[in-house]
């Protein structure tokens, strides 16, 4: 057997670790939306919402830890903070983030395993529509319960 890694008549891959003038934009390349299309936006939003929801998870645990202090601490948190309209808006943002990340995650999983590839745009549109409808219903529920 010939050594597959040695270039015997084959072109070896360039040394990717060599310092280059590659002008890779690094992390800026992920979040730069200029010129990007729908799938590019989905990628960026998935990343941002994934990190956002992760941040929220820790925040959530921190808030829940107030329960350990006692009912007084919890009740005052509720009264002074969470019934505030600002938090109502944040609830909508959280729901939007979860919907974007979850639905896009299902899309990425399906398409990424080679399923629904030829209809991937329609899938994105369908999930977008489902997400918008659920977000609308959720927002109305937040308003009716929080008011």
């Amino acid at each position, binding site marked *: 057997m010939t050594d*597959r890694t040695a270039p015997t008549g*084959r*072109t*070896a*891959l*360039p040394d*990717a*670790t060599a310092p*280059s*003038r*590659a*002008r*890779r*934009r*690094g*992390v*800026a*390349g*992920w979040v730069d939306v*200029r*010129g*990007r*299309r729908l*799938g*590019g936006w*989905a*990628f*960026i939003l*998935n990343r941002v919402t994934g990190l956002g929801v992760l941040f929220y998870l820790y925040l959530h645990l921190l808030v829940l830890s107030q329960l350990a202090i006692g009912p007084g601490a919890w009740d005052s948190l509720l009264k002074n903070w969470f019934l505030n309209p600002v938090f109502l808006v944040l609830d909508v943002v959280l729901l939007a983030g979860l919907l974007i990340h979850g639905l896009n995650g299902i*899309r*990425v999983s399906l*398409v*990424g*395993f*080679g*399923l629904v*590839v*030829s209809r*991937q*745009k329609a899938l994105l549109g369908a999930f977008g529509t489902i997400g918008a409808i659920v977000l609308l219903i959720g927002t109305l529920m937040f308003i009716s319960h929080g008011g």
Partner: protein
Amino acid sequence: MSDTVTFRVHRFKHGDAASHHDSFEFEPGPRSTVLDALTAIRRTQDPTLTLRHSCFHASCGTCGMKVNGQEVLACVTNVRELGTGEVTVDPLGNAPLVNDLVVDMGPFYARLNAVERPLVRESELVTGARTASGIPQPLRYEDCIECGICISACPIAATDPEYLGPAALAAADRVREEPRGGDVPFVLGLADAPHGAWRCHVAFECSEACPSNEAPASHIMQLRRSLIGRRWRALLAQPVGAGR
């Protein structure tokens, strides 16, 4: 209203500390392309402007660049249809910069060579085409014109210099579909790697940007599907208790 369009063109010469944009005025006709504009600018305004081009008809793949932030072939991009009074022209991204609008295509070509893709399709010979006597039967080439637009549009290539990239992965999938003497297990081995087909995050920017109907993202997904099948088969072929 003047029909003159201002071209803001990326400039960089060897030894420059940083790149900048120079502005040039150009009056496009109804069918002027960005490449027409740039070659006219070079001819009449600044002979030091460097760019790559050859065929002027979307075949050679040398004139890929970013026009108003999006990757296009300059030779088939109509200036008027852009609809902007100012047109910004930049070199392709995710490739080493050489000069003005020229990037080093070497690493990109090396990846295409690594997957040892044959250039002529067997499945779609142009059998219906009529040829004059003495002229051989026309051949059907692969769709990819090796322009590098896909890797410039890819958000993953922005942070992973080792990523094989859309064009090479699409080419690998073409080898899988039609080996034509290629070493399929070797090529699939290159693709079945962290910086291969699994690196993609399904943004589909490559397929959107590709000017030549190659649909590299769909090829990456097909490739993954067959790689999953390959892994299953390898797993099932293992004798019970092996690997312990």
